[in-house]
């Protein structure tokens, strides 16, 4: 019978390992858990509202003029800046939550974490840029 004694993982020295926080989490994660619920409940209103607002008639979500008239309101702009940010946070936190369910090597897990953070920052910046530099007069 094949023995797996030689392939079994042996405890490593943890001191000075910068990956320790990934392989042996010390934080409870409670604040991320709460934030996921709070942003989730906000997004129920925002996302369902956004979907209906953009589709209640064929023009509402696909017409430049209608988009421009909505973006004229600073309230709409402010809500949508928040919408993009918490939507991206909730989504990437959710992906990270799924990734953490698989016992990946620290280097793989941390690489995925890095990609999620960088992609999130780039795309939130892209969304903010679209809203803040939008010029309705541009032909």
């Amino acid at each position: 019978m094949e023995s797996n004694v030689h392939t079994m993982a042996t405890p490593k020295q943890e001191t000075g390992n910068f990956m320790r926080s990934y392989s042996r989490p010390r934080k409870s994660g409670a604040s991320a858990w709460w934030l996921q619920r709070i942003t989730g409940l906000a997004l129920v209103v925002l996302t369902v509202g956004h979907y209906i607002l953009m589709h209640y008639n064929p023009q509402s979500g696909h017409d430049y003029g209608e988009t421009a008239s909505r973006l004229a309101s600073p309230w709409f702009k402010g809500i949508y800046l928040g919408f993009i940010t918490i939507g991206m946070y909730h989504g990437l936190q959710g992906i990270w939550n799924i990734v953490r369910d698989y016992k990946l090597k620290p280097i793989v897990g941390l690489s995925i974490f890095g990609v999620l953070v960088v992609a999130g920052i780039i795309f939130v910046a892209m969304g903010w840029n679209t809203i803040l530099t939008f010029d309705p007069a541009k032909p």
Partner: protein
Amino acid sequence: MAYIPPREPFSAWNRLIMAYRRFSGSWAYILHRLTGIGLVVYLFVHIWALSSLTKGRAAFAEEMVTFTSPPFKVAEWLLGALVMFHAFNGIRIALVDLANGARYHKKLLGAVWVTGIAVVVLMFFLIFSSELFAK
């Protein structure tokens, strides 16, 4: 003499799926993850596609010719199904976690399906109103 275990009748994938099949809540768990992944992928595409708003009226109108074609309209309507399931099941998760939802989560799941399907059917009539009620 090596012990050879009897061959499993199912593959690993099959066993994984069969382990979940009896419980509606397990399917809700899987669907919540799959719809979540789908919505994040869509969010990236959505932010990227709508950045054309900064290029002015003509560029936006040109892009919208593609996005208002029939295949994209159907995709947009189906996207709503992901949104509604994830949103309503998310309310259910919050009730299970923060309220006494564990005692009635199956009823909540029924409500998720009924409300979700009702909203998606309603959105069908709104999204395809110009095709359905053409003069």
